[in-house]
């Protein structure tokens, strides 16, 4: 398995997701669904590692991708320009994708995954809304929330299909990637609602935002390399691909 094979697998999954949610009007005004290739890669790791991956697992992975696209679409809703056609259709695009994931699973009778993903969405919404609550939270609680937002739905899919051993690698990787994005955005002088929340908790604990994020990323990368190294269920080429991603990430952070 080489980088091209991985890239092709991700591209194929993306295409299948796009096909399942295509809608002429929505695409005209809101573009294609928002998909994070890193999330798709970690969603595919069991497949890349040769786990049983029949039509059911393939369809399940597609619907997980659709749910992420639905929720990510709603993350783009703004407080201003509220009645623009684009904003109105962005709300509906997210709802349409949610309807489609449900329809696909209903047609194949996969009630168990509908249940798991619904529970995952409930938890994700509860974590996402935390930034608008007044309750004081610790930095670790915010890291838990970010982790759930990034990887909770993939975990639900892994748990249902007995891929649970992949969860620690996927969770740590996606948390690192999100923290790196938050840090890069912060360094450009832009503030997200999550970075504001993290900064406030860091200040409350007598720390700086930079230190908190940097230390967490370093700690996670160390742990992640260790987990990959010890993962006896991983084929050597998959192990190498995962290690290469962490090292590329370390290089980009240092560079």
């Amino acid at each position, binding site marked *: 398995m080489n980088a091209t094979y991985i890239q092709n697998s991700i591209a194929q999954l993306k295409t299948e997701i796009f096909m399942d949610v295509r809608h002429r009007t929505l695409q005209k005004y809101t573009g294609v669904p928002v998909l994070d290739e890193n999330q798709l890669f970690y969603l595919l790791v069991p497949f890349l590692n040769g786990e049983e991956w029949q039509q059911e697992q393939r369809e399940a992975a597609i619907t997980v991708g659709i749910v992420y696209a639905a929720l990510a679409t709603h993350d783009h*809703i703004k407080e201003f320009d509220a009645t623009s056609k684009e904003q*109105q259709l962005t709300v509906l695009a997210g709802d*349409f994708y949610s309807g489609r994931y*449900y329809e696909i699973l209903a*047609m194949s009778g996969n009630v168990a995954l509908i249940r798991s993903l*619904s529970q995952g969405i*409930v938890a994700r919404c509860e974590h996402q809304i935390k930034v608008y609550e007044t309750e004081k939270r610790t930095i670790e609680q915010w890291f838990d929330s970010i982790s759930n937002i990034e990887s909770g739905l993939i975990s639900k899919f892994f748990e249902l299909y007995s891929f649970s051993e992949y969860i620690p690698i996927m969770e740590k990787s996606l948390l690192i990637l999100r923290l790196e994005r938050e840090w890069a955005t912060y360094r450009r002088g832009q503030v997200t609602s999550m970075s504001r929340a993290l900064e406030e908790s860091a200040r409350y604990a007598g720390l700086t935002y930079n230190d908190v994020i940097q230390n967490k990323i370093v700690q996670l990368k160390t742990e992640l390399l260790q987990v990959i190294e010890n993962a006896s269920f991983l084929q050597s080429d998959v192990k190498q691909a995962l290690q290469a991603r962490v090292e590329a990430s370390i290089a980009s952070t240092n560079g």
Partner: protein
Amino acid sequence: MEKMKLKLLYSDLKSDIDIIEKELEKAVNSSSDLINDASLHLLQAGGKRIRPIFVLLGAKFGEYDIDKMKDVAVPVELIHMASLVHDDVIDDSNMRRGRPTVKSQWNNRVAMYTGDFIFARALEYITKLEDPLVHQILARTMVEICNGEVIQIEDKFRLDQGLKDYFRRIKRKTALLISSSCELGAVAAGVDAKTVRHLKRFGYFVGMSFQIIDDVLDIMATDKELGKPAGSDLLQGNITLPILLLKDDPEMQPYLVKVFAGTLTETERQKMLRYVRKSDAIEQANKMSDKYLKKALQEIDALPKHPVKKKLRDVALFMGKRKF
């Protein structure tokens, strides 16, 4: 007065409706205080709960068990609630049923997460039922409702539309979920296919009649009764039946030009409402609603003999003649 009538109408279902109300509260219970506040804010705003009522009435033709029926009735109402929260973001509405909307009480993002949360809870709830047919009916309905809303946005501020466009829109916007409520209740209770078909069609016709009356009330009712400014539909660009029937009226034209340009003053809004209220468009719209109501009653006639048929008729007539 109207609410009293409605309560009287549902009196023999009261204990089951109370169970559903309690379940709705449980269903939206969250580990997030903000979601709890927003969801309770919505629940306390009330609503006619017509969709759960139709689930229960549809189920009466089969093996009626409230413990099972609540697993259908609750999610159907939750989906309706979630769509209202998102609709208020789409329409930038600040008031609904006389109360601030979630988006105005908090903000758009909170409304989006609350809607997504309620929607997910609805699906989590209905997975207590394993029958794939139940899920297929609900899923198709949800996708179609969404398609209807997309069309509604495309049709906004467009006067080059006909009655066919309007009926296609209200079918998806309202009639489908009412139709599916009747169908889902019946399917979950194991009702035979022929009866399910009549119930589904009954729900569709009642839903069409209901939405036409809703559109008439948006013009005829007072701001206080509506809990929002009368004529809000038109102000948001939605061309409802009474307006569609008046679109070529020379006296209506200047108002429409101003509405579309966003320059209609409050005095002009009042004058416009007075004009539409006096026009025969209201009577024509009411007649169209009656036509659908008549078709709904014909579907009841085709149902097998059952005491609940009278209740279906009463609820349909109430909805077609309601004043709020």
